[in-house]
């Protein structure tokens, strides 16, 4: 069973993008239309001047048909150029919705062999664009390019922290970040850990290292938000390790030994209903970190310090 986890094939990036991108991102929004009462001569004029291969036919903003270059050639050779569009057009139009994933369009091109699909708004049913194979290829290439540059810049930012500490000449260099956590503001709890995590990502730490550190920081932030009147998370980054100090001004922990026991909690019911306060916070912090120290004076406040080596 275990081996199975590691050898799963990776999804190709374009395939993944085809699921993520919506048709509206690929479609051409400036869509030219004609009315069923216009003639095939009008079709010829537009297809020739605009160098396009098909045109949707619209009546009172609703799509009623489509005329393609194949229809035009048929009319040219049969001398039907003065015929009204409504007698020539394909009335049963296969259309796509603008909020469908791009992969639906790709599948429909495969299935029907058409050169283009009109795109409708899902709610109003109105025609909002047209999509060709060329539009899809361009959209995918654009998305791939964006992805490529994002990867490139990520690579450039890797190991910035490491090189920073190597290049700065001193006996001891540290980078300190301070985050304030409001007490009793449970709605926002978690936000600061998230900001802190973004910084560590930028500084090029590995996912696993960040994971261990942020689990500890998130638990500490929850504790500040649940139990205290507020406090600070002070992260000190230096070569080889990160130290985090979590300082508040009360109410303090009565029995530290008891508080460290897994499952022991003094959290009020409303906190438990939110999924926290199960008495695993401090044990979790201890579990994730290399060193942990907890000091508390009732009425004065608590000072928690932990560090992880890298």
């Amino acid at each position, binding site marked *: 069973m*275990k081996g199975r*986890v590691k050898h799963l094939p990776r*999804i190709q990036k374009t*395939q993944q993008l085809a699921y993520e991108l919506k048709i509206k991102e690929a479609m051409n929004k400036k869509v030219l239309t004609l009315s069923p009462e216009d003639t095939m001569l009008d079709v010829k004029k537009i297809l020739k001047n605009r160098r396009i291969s098909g045109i949707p036919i619209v009546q009172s903003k609703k799509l009623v048909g489509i005329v393609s270059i194949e229809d035009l050639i048929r009319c040219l050779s049969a001398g039907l150029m003065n015929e009204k569009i409504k007698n020539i057009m394909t009335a049963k139009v296969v259309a796509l919705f603008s909020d469908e994933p791009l992969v639906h369009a790709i599948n429909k091109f495969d299935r029907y062999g058409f050169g283009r699909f009109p795109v409708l708004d899902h709610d109003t049913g109105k025609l909002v664009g047209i999509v060709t194979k060329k539009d899809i290829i361009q959209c995918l290439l654009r998305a791939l390019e964006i992805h490529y540059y994002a990867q490139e810049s990520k690579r450039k930012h890797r190991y910035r922290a490491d090189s920073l500490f190597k290049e700065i000449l001193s006996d001891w260099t540290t980078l300190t970040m301070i985050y304030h956590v409001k007490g009793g503001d449970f709605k926002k709890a978690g936000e600061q850990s998230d900001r802190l995590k973004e910084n560590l990502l930028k500084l090029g730490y590995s996912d696993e290292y960040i994971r261990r550190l942020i689990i500890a920081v998130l638990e500490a932030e929850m504790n500040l938000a649940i139990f205290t009147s507020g406090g600070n998370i002070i992260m000190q980054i230096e070569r080889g390790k990160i130290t985090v100090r979590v300082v508040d001004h009360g109410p303090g922990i009565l029995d530290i030994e008891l508080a460290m026991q897994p499952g022991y909690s003094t959290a009020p019911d409303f906190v438990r209903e939110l999924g926290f306060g199960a008495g695993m916070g401090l044990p979790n912090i201890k579990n994730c970190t290399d060193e942990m120290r907890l000091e508390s004076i009732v009425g004065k406040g608590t000072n928690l310090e932990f560090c992880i080596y890298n």
Partner: protein
Amino acid sequence: MKLKQIVKILEAEAITSMKVDLDIKIGGGSDLMSDVLFYAKPESMLLTGLTNIQVVYTASTAGIIAICFVRGKKPPKETIELAEKKKIALITTSLPMFESCGRLYKKGLLGTSEVEGVSKK
């Protein structure tokens, strides 16, 4: 297991935009977020009855890539917005926790204890 398979097995409904081909390697169910932080593995799915914003922060920290809300729970707007930002897929099923986990486990989704430990400790 692909996310689209999970959606089918749980008769679930998508809440956020998502990659249906997302590969979920491990599953876990809990309403206690500290337990999630303790036990969760990267590239896993969390099944939970909690819908607040901290579920997403917890998931993001623990490397969880998809969350399924059980018992028909629908999350508030802030939760959905943060999940979209963090690229965590949200789905909801009307099935209760035990049955949701049972169905996925029966179809071969692994549990957190069955995969090699990722975190050092």
